[in-house]
C-alpha cells in the first residue's frame, strides 16, 4: 500500500512550521501512523515530493500499544495516539500529521506537555495518609489510575488554555483517585482546589468524553468527584458501605 502524508515540520528552536508531503509504502496491512513514522526514520534516503531529503522526523513514542500516551498528535486534525491509528482507517486522502496545538512545539511532532505534570503538582494530587480502604469501591481507583497523561482531552477542551487556571480532565481523572480515598474531600485543600481549578472551569461540553485513547469512563469519575468534593455527598453503589 502507498500512503501520502503531510507532516508538519518544525526545527528545534524554530517557531515556524511547514507541511512536508511524503509518500510512504508498506506491505504491512496493520501498519499504524507510528509504524509509518518509524519506517520513515529508518530510511536515510527518504525524500519528499520535491526531492528534498526528509531527515529525522521528531516525535515521541514508547509502548506502541496505547498504554503510555507518548505518541499523541493531531492526525487529520483529531488528537489521537499514533500507535493506535491504523493507516487503513484513514481513507484515501493525504494523512496530515501535526503536533498537539495546546502545547509548545519542540520539533516536528514533539511537544512539551510539562504543564500537565505541573498542574498535578500544583493540585497536590497525592495521598496525604495511608490508604485505609481495602476495597476499590465502584472501581474508581482502577479507572482513575489508567490515565496516560497524553493530553488528548486537553487538546479538544474548549475551556483548557495553557497558563489558565482550569486544569481539565488530565488533572480531574488522577484527582478522582485521591478524592475517592478521602472521608470528607470537600473540606480538604484538594477538595478546594478541585472546585476552583476543575469544577468551576468546566463548561460541561464533555468533548473529552469520547477522545480519551484509554477509554476512561470520565462521566463516572466526574459524578463521584463532584458529589463528594463539591456537594459533600457520598456516592456508592448499594450494598457497599463507607469504611
Amino acid at each position: 500500500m502507498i500512503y501520502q502524508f503531510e507532516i508538519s515540520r518544525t526545527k528545534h528552536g524554530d517557531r515556524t512550521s511547514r507541511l512536508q508531503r511524503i509518500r510512504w509504502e508498506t506491505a504491512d496491512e496493520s501498519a499504524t501512523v507510528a509504524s509509518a513514522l518509524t519506517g520513515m526514520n529508518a530510511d536515510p534516503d527518504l525524500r519528499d515530493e520535491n526531492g528534498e531529503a526528509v531527515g529525522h522526523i521528531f516525535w515521541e513514542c514508547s509502548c506502541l500499544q496505547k498504554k503510555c500516551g507518548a505518541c499523541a498528535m493531531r492526525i487529520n486534525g483529531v488528537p489521537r495516539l499514533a500507535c493506535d491509528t491504523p493507516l487503513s482507517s484513514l481513507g484515501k486522502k493525504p494523512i496530515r500529521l501535526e503536533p498537539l496545538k495546546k502545547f509548545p512545539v519542540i520539533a516536528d511532532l514533539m511537544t512539551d506537555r510539562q504543564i500537565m505534570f505541573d498542574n498535578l503538582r500544583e493540585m497536590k494530587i497525592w495521598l496525604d495518609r495511608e490508604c485505609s480502604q481495602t476495597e476499590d469501591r465502584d472501581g474508581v481507583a482502577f479507572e482513575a489510575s489508567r490515565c496516560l497523561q497524553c493530553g488528548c482531552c486537553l487538546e479538544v477542551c474548549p475551556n483548557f488554555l495553557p497558563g489558565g487556571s482550569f486544569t481539565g480532565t488530565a488533572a480531574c481523572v488522577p484527582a478522582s483517585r485521591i478524592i475517592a480515598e478521602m472521608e470528607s474531600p470537600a473540606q480538604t485543600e484538594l477538595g478546594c482546589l478541585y472546585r476552583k481549578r476543575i469544577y468551576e472551569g468546566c463548561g460541561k461540553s464533555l468533548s473529552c468524553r469520547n477522545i480519551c485513547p484509554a477509554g476512561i469512563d470520565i462521566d463516572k469519575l466526574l459524578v463521584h468527584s463532584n458529589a463528594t468534593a463539591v456537594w459533600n455527598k457520598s456516592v456508592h453503589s448499594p450494598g457497599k458501605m463507607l469504611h
Partner: protein
Amino acid sequence: MDTINIIGAGLAGLSAAVTLAENGVSSRLISSQPSERSQSVLAEGGINAALDLMGEQDSPALHFEDTMKGGVYLADPEAVRNLTENAPRIVRKLAALGVPFQTENGQMIQRYFGGQKKRRTAYAKTGTGKMLMTALTDYARKFEADGLIHRLHHHDFVKADIRDGILRGVYVRDRYTEETALHSGPAIACAGGLNGFFPGRTTGTTQNTGHVQAVLFSQGVRMANLEFIQYHPTTFGISGKRCLVSEAARGEGGRLCVLRGGEKWYFMEELYPELGNLMPRDVVSREMYRVVRRPDCGDQVFLDMTALDPSVWRTKLSDLREECMHYLRIDPASALLPVEPGIHYFMGGIDVDARHRTSLPGLYAAGECACQYHGANRLGGNSMLGAVFGGETAARDLLDGGFDGGCLSLSTGCLSPTSVSLSTGCLSPISAEKLSSFLCSALGILRTEEGIRQSLEGVGEMLRDEALTEDFRARLLLGEAMLRSASARRESRGAHTREDYPERDDRAFRKTTLAECRDGSVTISFRDLP
C-alpha cells in the same frame, strides 16, 4: 549527602527516589520520558508476595524456594532471601499507597502464576504495572513538591564521569534543548531491559534502548548472565512489536494446545502433570518451540480460554479480553487465541551484589537493567517485586554510607551542572537492525555453537568499521558480550538451551557469567555463586 542521580523513572527508579526522599535525601530523576511512559506501566499480571491470603500455608521460605528453582539455582541466594522476606511488606506498602489490588469480600486475593504452587500473585486485573506506577508516581509527586525529587524529564544518559576509578557524576542531554550537562554525585541505573538490541521483536517499549548498559559496559562496568533472555510463551505480533498475553490468562485457567490429528492436544498438561500450563516460562516456551516442529502436530500453538467462567472475564481479565479483540479481532472467551513465544525480559544485565552495588564504586543498578534475583529464568510476578525492592535496596545502601564511604569525597569536587558539548552520534536504524539480526539468529530459544560463531563473525566485521560512532561501537561490544556469554556457557539451563550441550552441568556452570570490556575487547569469565 549529595543529590543522587537516578537514571530511569520506572518502578525501580521511583522506588529508589521515594526511599531516598523518605529519609530526607534528594535525587534527580533522569528519564527520557515521564514515568507514565515507562516500561513498568506495561507490566500486567501481578506482583508476588507470600502474604498467605488464600489459606494455603504460603511462606517467604516457599517463595524463596520457587524463585531459586525457577531460576535453576543461578540466582544469589542471599539477595533472593532478602527479596522474598521483604515481599509481604512491599505489597502492603503499595496497598497503603492506594494500589487497587483485587479483592473479594473486602479482602485482597492472589492468583496462580507460573512456577509457583501457591496463589501468591497480588494483582489488579491485568493492569497491575500501571496501577503500581500511578500510586508510586502520585507518592513521588509529594516529594517533588517538597523539593526532594527533581525530575529531569526528556533527558538522556550520555555517559558516566569516571575519575580515579570512581563514578563522580553523569552526563545527561536534554532532548528538548539538545544541551548536555554534567551532574555530580553517585548514580543508580534503573534503565530497563535490553529491548533496543532487538527492535520490533520484544514486548517492551522503544525507550528501553539498552543505551545506558552499552555505554557503561564500554566504560568498564561489569555485566553478568547476558545469555539469559526470557521468551514469554504467549505473545502475538502487532505492528512494530510483540504484544503480551499475560501469564494471568493461564493462572486463571487458560490452556495451551496444538492441533494433532485434528484434535486439540493440551501438551503441557500431558508433559508436566503437576504444574501443566503454569510451568516456568523457559520450560513452556521450549516445549512450544518443539511441539510445532513435530510432524504429527500443527505449526501453531493456541491459548484456549473458552472454558473460563464468565465471572473471570468480567472481574479479572476484562482488559486482556479487550486487547485480544482490539488487535486480533478474536474474542478469547469463545475462540482459540494463536500465540508464540516472544522476547520479554532480560535476566542478565549490570552485575550487582545483594546491596545492588556494581563493579564501579559510586554506581548502583536496579530493576531489569541489573542482573539480580532471577538467575537463569525469571518467574512471573517477580519482576515488579525485584524492581521495587532493588531500587529501595540501592537507595538504602547509599543512605547507610554506600560503597565504603567512597561517595563522601564527591561533595568536595568542583563539579556542577555545566553545559558541555558532547558528540554521541545518532543510532542508524539500518545498523541497529543488522546487529539485531545477528543476535536473534544466535540467541533464540535453542542455540548452537555454530550459530553463535557465525553471529560473532558478523558483529566482528561490523566492529572493524572505522567510521563507527562511539555509541554504536559500545552497542556492538555489548552485543558481542551477549554472544560470547552464550558461547562460553556450554550447558543448558533455564532460558539458555544449547542443542549441542543439552544437559545441565552444575559442576562447571552453576556460576555467574561475567562479561568485561577492557581497551575495546570483551572477556568472559565465571564466578562462583556467593
